[in-house]
């Protein structure tokens, strides 16, 4: 199964930019399904955690008002090329996924 996460980094002059896209419906619970005419139950990512060399560098708490297929970007200092970067998410149905990449 392909990962739900795309995680990319770019380091310039000591600053690493992290960009992530997570494949997730982010259903609010307010949307009506066009075929069944029933409300689609809420299904959204609540927490995301990003670790640099096993230490949390950034963590997110989200509501259902983060857009479908969430995009996240942030920047940090102090990483070296080849360091480990891990992203883990979990949603309101206790689904979870994670990915690990090396910093570029």
């Amino acid at each position, binding site marked *: 199964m392909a990962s739900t996460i795309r995680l990319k980094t770019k380091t310039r002059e000591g600053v690493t930019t992290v960009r992530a896209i997570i494949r997730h419906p982010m259903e*609010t619970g307010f949307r009506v399904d066009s075929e069944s005419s029933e409300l689609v139950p809420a299904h959204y990512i609540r927490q995301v955690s990003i670790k640099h060399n096993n230490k*949390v560098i950034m963590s997110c708490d989200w509501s259902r008002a983060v857009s479908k297929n969430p995009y996240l970007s*942030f920047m940090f200092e102090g990483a070296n090329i080849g360091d480990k970067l891990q992203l883990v998410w979990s949603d309101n149905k*206790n689904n*979870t996924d*994670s990915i690990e990449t090396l910093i570029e």
Partner: protein
Amino acid sequence: MLRRDALKYILSGSALTIIGLIKPFAVMAKWNKTAFTAVDHEEAVRAYFPGQEIQSSDQITIGVHPIVENGTVVPIKIKTDLPNIESITIFADTNPNPLIANFDLFPGCIGFVSTRIKVQQNSNIIIMVKSNDTVFSKSTFIEVKEGGCG
């Protein structure tokens, strides 16, 4: 189980998901349900920053288009020069639940976050930045042509 099957299982996502299930919750703090389900903006702010005084600040820049065609995907970029940033929080005061997202930044992070949010109707977008134990805020108004809570 045949060795082949075991290998297939390990290589498939399911084994990874099980490992993933145990790990993430140990490192994640509790999701603030009271604040996230609050329907009133002031209530959400009080639940998220209990007892905190909030000061307005010009050291926060909100990058968002003032007129939005499609409220389901509103790109937003937040920058701040405030020192020792602990968190950046996004609210839209007219959304069904005004608290949209919080980002905890750990030492080493630059005061910057970019994401995409849903905004249901015309709204103030309020950004709160916690810096040196103080909460600073800045807000900007956006007009939404087509709502984003579907």
